[in-house]
């Protein structure tokens, strides 16, 4: 069976990535998880891994080419299977894989039950007029948000995308410019489309502070917060998911992929930890350390750049009392943690001084109501203080 290696959709705003080099050549044996090629996104250099074992039968894209997410870049499979002729662009344009039971390439290839496309694909609703215009100007439909009924892409949306493309072409686009632009787009989209509301709670962190000093220097407060979120979020599934603009509905996601806001020299990055459920503090700390290092070095993997389900923004040491980070779409919540400072707190009717921080939860009001946000914060506070 021949399987595709495709560029995953890492976030909503990446229109194209640069394929920088091949790490395996045609004829090389590959194992599942082997890096096959390297791409550069607006945010990082990413290695693309093979999803199956076999031989790298064919590479479909030359190094130095810019390609949209979902592009099939290589085919992997047994040395004896016949390699079908495929257009590398097809997966970027169509929502169903060419190599499928419904749509076999030809019977001679005998391709059966392929690996599903690694990226989540969405059905593109578009008017015939908009489609024709997009084709004429070679606009990537996957990058356009439709403003018609039920999210249908209409002519005005394509016109806007063309204008945007032209502006980008006019302003040029080094990596830094692309990173800045991607961030600008993302925060604008968030602010424009998400009806935020915020709720805050002050948490006595004396227990966490004493546990942290026992845990060793490699464990940070962020790791404790991540652990607390791993314990709290499963009870509040509405906060852990993605808002589907097409359906105007929330998709709750069981896995907790916590995004960590990392400020790097190249700009803001939000790598995601692997599913936090059932993981130990040490395990989380080790992965967090690796992610942050990779984020600064610009070597994050595609897995780490997949869309998180919830984001934590921890401002770190200093004197910032509170702040309200904006949500990173399509997520529906973000937690902003102020600096840990000695604060006067009332404990058992006595005024005491304790290390404390204010946790501000920002939520998308389309998906989450105040009662749900409050219940989550209450439980998070309890978990952090006990």
């Amino acid at each position, binding site marked *: 069976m021949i399987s595709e290696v495709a560029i995953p959709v890492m976030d909503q705003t990446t229109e194209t990535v640069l394929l920088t080099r091949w790490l395996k050549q045609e004829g090389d044996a590959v194992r599942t998880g082997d890096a096959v090629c390297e791409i550069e996104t607006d945010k990082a250099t990413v290695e693309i891994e093979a999803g199956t074992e076999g031989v790298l039968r064919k590479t479909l894209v030359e190094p130095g080419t810019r390609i949209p997410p979902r592009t099939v870049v290589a085919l992997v499979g047994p040395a004896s299977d016949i390699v079908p002729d495929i257009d590398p662009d097809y997966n970027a344009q169509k929502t169903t894989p060419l190599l499928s039971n419904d749509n076999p390439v030809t019977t001679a290839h005998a391709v059966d039950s392929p690996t599903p496309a690694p990226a989540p694909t969405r059905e593109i609703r578009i*008017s*015939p*007029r*908009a489609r024709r215009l997009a084709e004429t100007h070679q606009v990537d439909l996957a990058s356009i948000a439709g*403003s*018609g*009924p039920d999210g249908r892409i*209409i002519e005005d949306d394509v016109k806007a995308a063309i204008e945007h493309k032209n502006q980008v072409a006019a302003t040029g686009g080094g990596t830094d410019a692309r990173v800045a632009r991607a961030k600008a787009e993302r925060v604008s989209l968030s602010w424009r489309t998400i009806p935020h509301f915020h709720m805050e709670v002050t948490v006595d962190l004396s227990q966490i502070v004493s546990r942290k000093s026992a845990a060793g220097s490699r464990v940070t407060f962020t790791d404790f917060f991540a652990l607390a979120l791993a314990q709290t979020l499963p009870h509040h599934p509405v906060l852990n998911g993605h808002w589907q603009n097409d359906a105007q509905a929330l998709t709750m996601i069981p896995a907790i992929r916590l995004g960590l806001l990392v400020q790097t020299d190249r700009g803001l990055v939000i790598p995601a930890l692997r599913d936090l459920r059932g993981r130990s503090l040490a395990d989380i700390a080790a992965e967090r350390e690796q992610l942050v290092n990779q984020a600064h070095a610009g070597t994050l993997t595609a897995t780490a750049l997949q869309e998180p389900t919830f984001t934590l923004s921890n401002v770190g040491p200093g004197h910032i009392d509170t702040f309200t980070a904006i949500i990173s779409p399509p997520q529906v919540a973000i937690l902003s943690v102020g600096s840990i400072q000695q604060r006067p707190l009332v404990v058992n009717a006595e005024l005491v001084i304790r290390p404390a921080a204010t946790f501000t939860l920002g939520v998308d009001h389309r998906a989450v109501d105040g009662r749900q946000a409050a219940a989550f914060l209450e439980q998070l506070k309890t978990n952090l203080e006990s």
Partner: protein
Amino acid sequence: MRELTYAQAINEGIREEMRHNGKIVVLGEDVGKYGGVFGVTRGLYDEFGAARVRDCPLNEAAIVGCAIGLAIAGRPAIAELEFMDFTTFAMDPITNQAPKLRFFWGGQVSVPLVVRTPIAAGLGFGTQHSQSLEAWLVHVPGLKVVMPSTAYDAKGLIKTAIRDPNPVVFAESISLYSARGEIPDEEYVIPFGKADIKRKGDDVTLVALGPIMPKALQAAEELAQQGVDVEVIDPRTVAPLDIDTIVNSVKKTGRLVVAHVAHKTGGVGAEIAQQVVERAFDSLDGPPVRVAAADVPIAASQRLEQATLPDVAGMMKACLSFRQ
């Protein structure tokens, strides 16, 4: 230029043609001395006499049947049926005889017949006096169906209808009879199959038939206040239909709304929408939308009737439906 009402304009058109052609005969219930139930034939009896302006018994089948006989015999005939609903009594002569005789007699006869009949929608006339049945008629090859919406169009089109050697159903609008419009002093005719763009616009194409036209123009003006520029097209004749003008407009705007007072299911709106889809699919920025009467009998209660019929708000909503 003078101002005439829609009813007066039709009257003047008939009068001019009757002066041109001494063979033309008018038939109908109370079309003589009384001048027609809505006054459209007023004065014709006095000018042309009882031989050419003939009162008939209450029998629509007989009126149209006689008119066909006269037409075949070389006397162009104008039959008036008091309400479009009453065409049902004359369906055999209108659909089974008039449009077919020339065909099956191999061109040996022509049928210069005009069936004038008004649409009463919106006036509280009740279930059997309020229908707009043009869809029943355009389905029959050989019938021409005219639906004027202004005094000017009504006069130019009635003259063309009378001169046509083939049968024409001329669907007037009672709600427009008293609407005034400028009429040139000199004679003019308006060809069939030529739509009129009543208002230019770039954003949405709104095709409106007959009696709903004033409301369509009102909807367009209100939408203009909201920055939506609606092009309002009056096909004027639904058979033959000037689909080219509609298609060209949709190629520009990408959006089509069709409005008529007839019921939605099986209406002319569906036909127009489908022809546009066939001809301009790639130009459409959204599915065509029909604004029409609900698929229920029209009530005698005017409140219920208004709830059933398409209105300005409905057309505005349809024109805005292409966005979220």
